[in-house]
Each structure stands twice: as C-alpha cells, then as structure tokens.
C-alpha cells in the first residue's frame, strides 16, 4: 500500500514530465528535417572564439543523424529537463507533508521510517527511469518516419547513463526534503546546485571531462563506444550517500 501512496503523491509530477518529454522527443526528431535543410548554409557561419568553436562542433555533430540526436536530445533537452524532473520527483516526502497534513497519520501506521523513505525513494527513482527511457525509445521507434535509423542500444545506453548520473540530483532533493519542511527550498537549492555544476562544466576548461553532465550525456560512449564506468560509479556512490543521509536524518527526527 505504501507504493500506492507514493504513486498518488508523485503521479502528477511524473505524468506531466512524461508527457512533456515525449512531446519534446518527437519535436527533436522532426527538427532534424529542418536542420538538414539548413545545413548547406552552415559553412557561411563565421563565428570566432569559444562560441565559434562550439557552433562549429555542433554543426559537425549534426551532419550525422546519430550526432544530431545525441547533441539535441541526450546532451541538451533530456539532460536539462531530466535534471529538473529528477529534482521535482525527489522533492516532497514525509517531512514536507508535515506542513500540509498527513505526516502523523503515516507515522502512526505500522511501517518503519526506513521503509517509508525507501518506498518513496524507490518509487521516485522508478518514475525517473521511465521518464528518461521511454521518451528516448521513441527515437529509434519514430526515426523511420523521417527516413532515418537510430540504434535502440544507443538510446538505452544514453538514457541509462542519464538515469544513473541524474539520480544524484534526485537524491540531493530527497535529502534536502528531510531537512526543510516546505517543498520550495529543496527544489530551489537542488536546482541551484545543478545550475552551478552546469555553469562550472561550461566555463572551467578541463572540468567538463569530470562533470556530472558529461556522464549524464554519455559523451564517452558517443565518441568512443565505451561506458563512463568511473563517472557512473562515482555518481552512484554520491546518490547512495545522499539517500543514506536522508534516511538517517529522517530516523532521528521528532515529529
């Protein structure tokens, strides 16, 4: 029954996220047709500096359908929106409900706090997994509609990387929700951390190779065909530590 309750608590965040990401995934797909038509004009772009380098890199990547999908979907749209929905799904929970009612009722049931937190975390992570995998699977499914092919293995590997690394943001929001009673501070703080990390990866030279968004996008797999094992293990360890911290924090609290 706790699974049902967790589902009731998070279903709208999940369903809205799923619907939105599926629409964006379809949009990305059909955007390729327009991008390909504009590609002959790309040679006339004459930007210099870091921005110019990035534009040229994007143009080179988008010459191939695989590169276009990775850049537009996995590195940009899904990484950004996936992070946002990971934070949204991680926010809330037992302590947050204390301000809106229901916490004492849940705590009066014969279920340990670890179980309450565990079920809530597992439900959220399962929803996050569906959020990143299902829209990504639309790409191999719908690509033939625009005369292209996209590997289902690539879709699964990239969305898998995004799930594992993105779970750290879910876990951060989950931990913060056991610290703050309102739903807003965990959300805003976790988003701020994500933005700070993204900005650091974009501006500090050499840092992006070790950054979490680098792992989320599966860039190593895209370029070399290898999984970013070290990054995946590191982010898994961070997520586990954050979730453990959340359960410990919940266990010691008075309600």
């Amino acid at each position: 029954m706790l699974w049902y309750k967790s589902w009731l608590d998070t279903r709208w965040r999940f369903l809205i996220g799923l619907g939105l990401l599926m629409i964006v995934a379809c949009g990305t797909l059909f955007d390729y047709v327009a991008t390909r038509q504009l590609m002959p004009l790309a040679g006339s772009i004459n930007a210099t500096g870091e921005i110019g380098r990035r534009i040229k890199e994007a143009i080179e990547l988008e010459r191939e359908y695989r590169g276009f999908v990775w850049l537009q979907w996995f590195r940009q749209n899904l990484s950004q929106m996936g992070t946002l929905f990971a934070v949204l799904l991680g926010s809330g929970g037992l302590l947050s409900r204390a301000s809106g009612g229901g916490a004492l009722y849940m705590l009066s049931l014969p279920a340990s706090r670890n179980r309450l937190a565990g079920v809530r975390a597992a439900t959220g992570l399962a929803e996050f997994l569906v959020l990143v995998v299902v829209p990504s699977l639309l790409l191999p499914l719908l690509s033939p509609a625009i005369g292209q092919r996209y590997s289902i293995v690539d879709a699964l590997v990239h969305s898998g990387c995004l799930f594992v690394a993105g779970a750290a943001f879910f876990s951060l929001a989950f931990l913060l929700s056991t610290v703050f009673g309102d739903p807003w501070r965990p959300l805003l703080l976790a988003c701020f951390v994500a933005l700070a990390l993204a900005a650091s990866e974009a501006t500090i030279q050499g840092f992006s190779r070790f950054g979490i968004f680098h792992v989320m996008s599966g860039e190593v797999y895209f370029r070399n065909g290898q999984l970013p094992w070290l990054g995946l293990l590191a982010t898994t360890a961070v997520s586990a530590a954050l979730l453990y911290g959340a359960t410990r924090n919940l266990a010691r609290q008075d309600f």
Partner: protein
Amino acid sequence: MSDPFVIETADLRKSYGGVEALRGLTVRVPAGSIYGFLGKHGAGKTTMIKILLGMARPTSGRALVFGLPAETEQQSVEIRRRTGFVSEDKDLDDSMTVEEIIRFTRGFYPSWRVDLEQQYLRTFELPLDRKVRKLSRGTRTKLALLLALSRAARLLILDEPTSGLDPAVTEEVLQSLVAHVAREEMTVFFSSHHIAEVDQVADHVAIIDRGRAVIAGGLDDLREGYRRIQLVFDGAAPDVSFRAPGVARVRCEGRVMTVVSSDGAERILEEARALGPRSVDVFPVTLKEIFLETVSSED
C-alpha cells in the same frame, strides 16, 4: 491481556531545545481501562503520546507499551500494529477519498474488521467518494475514529478526540467510543483538557501539569480520597500547617479555612477540630475541583 499495564512510563523526560516538555513523567495505564490524560494546553500530553507511538524520542526515562520499548524502531512498529491512533488535528491524507484512505489503511492490518468498518460507515454516514480535504471537522473526526477502531487494535490512543467539535458531534463520538469499548476488549488512553469529557467516559485518570503527573489513579478512588473540609471560625482563620498526610491545599479567606485532602478526611478533621472552629463541614470533591486544586497549586 497478560500485562497488567498496557502503558508504563518512568521518569520520562523530553526537551525541545531548552524547553522541557516532559519533566519526569511516570504513568501506568492498566489493561482494559479507559484512561483520561488530563492537562492544560502545553502540559505535555501530545509529547507523551508521540513518544508512545515512536514519533518522538525521549531525552531520558522509559516508555513501554505492551511491555515493548517505544523508542526502539522495530518495537515501535509492533506497538503501532496493535494500536489505533487519532491525532489532535485528525491528521489524515487529504489527497485521498474516504474510500481510498480506508482501503489504504486496511492494507496495513491483517486483522482489519470489515464488519466494524461497515458498521461505522453506516453509523457515521461517511461519504465514500468525497476527498478527505473536503470533509468537515466532525466528519473528519468520525473517519479518523473509523480508521482507528476498525483495525482491531488492543490499545486506542486519542489525542484530544473532541477538539473543535460541536456538542452534538462530541456526544456522538463519545457514545460511539464507549459503546465500542464495551463490546471489544481493549484499553483506551485519551488526552483531553475537557474535564467533563474525562469525567463522563474515563475510569482512570492522570492529571498532568508542566510535564509531570500530579495525580494518577482510579477515578472512583480519587473521588473517594479527595475531600474539601471547610472550617468557619469566629475570628480570622488561623495560619497553621497540618501535620496529617494528604493535605493537598490550605486556603484561608477571612473567617473561612478550606482544606483539600487527597487521602481521606479523618486525621485532618482531628487536627482541624483542635483549632476550635465554630463549624466543620466535609464535602465530596468533583474531578473539576481536583484538577483546579492540583494544577493551580503548581502555579
């Protein structure tokens, strides 16, 4: 019920920051009793209940429910499995409908009594398809009571069960409670600051003040033991202190001296007559008077 006491606390203390909510609370709740836990707002009643249910941890002291330590997580789960609880705010999941929250709660209790569920659904006329957040305070209380009673609990803990209810609903809730306890073998522990309510349904009572139990025992024993002795003198009442045990309070106003005794009146009467009063009268004491005398004497 094998344990003589369903709830036992000994020197229970709880501090929130620098504020002491409980200051050495010792209470024993006999199995099968309806135990009223009486105290003013902020006396520590809710804190005590939260400790019993594992929602708060004691700073020191001991709290046992069914002989199990309440501060241990696993034992606390077992305590909650055998206990029905209604919180002061009738805290329920607002996002569910009445039907959903009944189904949800039923899933946690293998011994859930469907017959009682159906009976209280009819008695309380609960609207199954309505969201909990849209229920009135009275209907919400009835739903909370249904959820607590239908789980076939051996112990029912109610925190200010009639708080915020109009007199008609209060009466309906109390009558349902008494009728339920008369049918089922269970112990009821309920906190209240309404003396009349405790007087109406409880057979045992503890009066708590500033985190300590100032009186605890059977209600009939308390009524039997407490006496108000009124002495009228020809002149001003003398300022004396009694040696006899059980003097709860002595008050002098002009020619009248009032002595409240907690342990019978005989020995105090002997001392009082020696003072040479013009008249001596002994009156029984109501629970309200006992409450006011004991709680106010602490101020």
